[in-house]
């Protein structure tokens, strides 16, 4: 029998009993909709992860020193702690590294978080650095033998860019907290101040709403200019436009607002740009933090796969400058990996659920087809009597199963189009993609057809005489 004629018969059979067709395909409808939703939620999760890390370059490596074990806000509020003002950078704070002579790479979040005082009270967290060098320190710690303070500098950045291969950019930043006055503020308020270089904007994937970012000459001349994060601009001036060209007082010194950043939203780590005020790095060193700075150097590896090698090279280089000093390395890639790995697990679980739904749906199809074969035993007998081959009868039933699942799959996709917005309003991140539709369709038709094989075989294997005499 010609396939086109078989299809015509299948069409007749399916349209003849629409209700039965729909009932048969319910399992497939649910299954297809589930697959689409699972993939959509998975993709949504991925998009969420990407969103959270959008200010991080995948090749970014943050290098910081947290060996001092103290971490307090600096500048005007430094009275809070007797320890070294470290720029407030390390989320893990001083207490966690207390007594530890080293911090391992990737631990404890290396980006300056701008988070202000965290664990600043633990001023006893000092280590011994027998061969530590560089700056002397004014720390009051009594148990120190070598009162050395390790501070990364712009020279280190220059060294890294000069001697370490495979990096596309490097920069140095610090964060601190300071009191701000000006604009619509009734009284002084504490904000995160980030001292950054001109290339920070590209490294952190930031965009300007208005004005220009900090320039090299701002930095060299230690200009008192600043760039406001979107939320900061709104809080202090009401809008970005109002903020542009205005002045604020940082630690009672006047700064001109040279620009406002675009809103970035929440980010998983690093400086939250919406909430920060950016000033030239050297300006910050001169007027705000002085030598009591604990900056973070950020290096961008050209190739994400090369991050480990870059870390090794940087470590070797820094060991020459700072013998017996361990720095904390935190690379964005591994953080992103961890975040997407947990998202992948969720997706896997949902996929397993979808698979179960499909198996149940397939068994449903199989049951209905068995009943159908039973109902149509007589018809099968007739077809055999007038010369229908086993092959064409099996093919007809199989095509019917495939067609029913095709209908079910299509309806399932339509259902998912309705469910997706609902899920979104319920708070799930849903991202519908064409590939999800294709995969769901393949699964739907595949399941229906596979579970249709056995009933179809049963039908085709009936003995004509017996099939004909069946009532």
């Amino acid at each position: 029998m010609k396939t086109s004629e078989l299809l015509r018969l299948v069409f007749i059979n399916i349209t003849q009993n629409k209700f039965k067709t729909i009932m048969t395909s319910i399992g497939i409808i649910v299954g297809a909709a589930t697959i689409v939703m699972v993939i959509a939620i998975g993709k949504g999760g991925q998009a969420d992860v990407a969103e959270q890390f959008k200010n991080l370059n995948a090749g970014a490596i943050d290098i910081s020193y947290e060996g001092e074990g103290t971490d307090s806000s600096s500048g005007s509020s430094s009275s809070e702690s007797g320890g070294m003002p470290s720029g407030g950078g390390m989320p893990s704070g001083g207490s966690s590294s207390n007594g530890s002579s080293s911090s391992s790479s990737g631990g404890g979040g290396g980006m300056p978080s701008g988070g202000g005082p965290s664990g600043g009270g633990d001023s006893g967290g000092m280590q011994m650095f027998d061969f530590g060098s560089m700056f002397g320190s004014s720390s009051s710690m009594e148990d120190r033998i070598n009162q050395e303070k390790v501070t990364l500098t712009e020279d280190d950045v220059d060294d890294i860019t000069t001697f370490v291969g495979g990096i596309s950019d490097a920069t140095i930043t610090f964060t601190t907290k300071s009191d701000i006055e000006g604009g619509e503020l009734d009284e002084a308020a504490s904000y995160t101040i980030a001292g950054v270089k001109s290339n920070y904007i590209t490294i952190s994937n930031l965009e300007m709403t208005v004005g220009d970012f900090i320039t090299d000459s701002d930095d060299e001349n230690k200009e008192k200019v600043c760039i406001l994060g979107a939320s900061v601009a709104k809080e202090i001036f009401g809008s970005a436009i109002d903020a542009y060209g205005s002045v604020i007082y940082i630690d009672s010194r006047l700064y001109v607002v040279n620009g406002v950043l675009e809103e970035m939203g929440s980010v998983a780590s690093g400086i939250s740009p919406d909430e920060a005020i950016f000033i030239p790095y050297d300006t910050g060193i001169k007027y705000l933090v002085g030598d009591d700075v604990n900056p973070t150097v950020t290096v961008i590896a050209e190739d994400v796969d090369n991050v480990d090698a870059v870390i090794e090279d940087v470590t070797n280089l820094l060991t020459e400058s700072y013998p017996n000093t361990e720095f904390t390395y935190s690379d964005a890639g591994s953080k992103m990996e961890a975040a997407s790995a947990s998202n992948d697990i969720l997706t896997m679980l949902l996929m397993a659920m979808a698979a179960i739904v499909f198996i149940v749906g397939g068994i449903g199809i199989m049951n209905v087809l068995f009943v159908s074969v039973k109902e149509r035993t007589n018809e099968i007998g007739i077809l055999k009597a007038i010369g229908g081959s086993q092959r064409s009868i099996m093919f007809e039933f199989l095509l019917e199963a495939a067609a029913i699942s095709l209908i079910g799959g299509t309806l399932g996709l339509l259902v998912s189009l309705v469910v997706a917005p609902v899920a979104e309003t319920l708070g799930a991140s849903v991202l519908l993609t064409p590939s999800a539709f294709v995969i769901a369709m393949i699964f739907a038709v595949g399941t229906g057809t596979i579970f249709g094989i056995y009933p179809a075989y049963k039908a085709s294997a009936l003995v004509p005489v017996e099939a004909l005499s069946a009532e």
Partner: protein
Amino acid sequence: MAIIELKNINKYYDAAGDEKLHVLKDINLEVQKGEYLAILGPSGSGKSTLMNIIGCMDHMSDGYYCLDGELIHEAKEKDLVRIRNEKIGFIFQKYHLIPTYNVLQNIVMPLLMRGMTLNEARERSVDTIDMLGLGQRITHKPNELSGGQQQRVAIARALVGEPAILLADEPTGALDRNSGLEVLKLFKRLNDMGNTIVMITHDADVATHAQRTVKIVDGEIFEL
């Protein structure tokens, strides 16, 4: 020329215990081309089994069967499918139309099985449909037709393939007297047109419409 040649056909069924049911006993039968034969027998005589064997729907236990040049006793199931389609036109007591398909689709089914398209098959069946007066009803479903009309659809289906024999199993059994007589008149006409007909019946009156009648009793065949 003999179109059906049955020699020493035996058929056994496995029964309870070791016994075998001997349903057909050394059947010898010849049907000539253009003949109209009635096989008359009461129920349980083995006539249905004989009809199934003649119709290539059941296997004989042993014997020789030649249908229009095909050696059925040697044929494989795959060949039997083709032979049923090309050589035999079945007409059943209960019409056996497919309820979901309309009259036309039912009639052309044997031609579709041969690989024709619906249009080719429709062209081939126009004359048959007209002859049986079904032209007005080709889009009807079987359940919208009377018993006599349904049997005419079944006869049309049997005829479109231009088979070597028409094999009718109690063709009037489910019909009222008038419809039954019409079917028998139609058979006579088809036979006059040169069709070979083998009709199985339990009704001696019906059998009288045939040219020749053989009787089957307890699995044995007798010429009348």
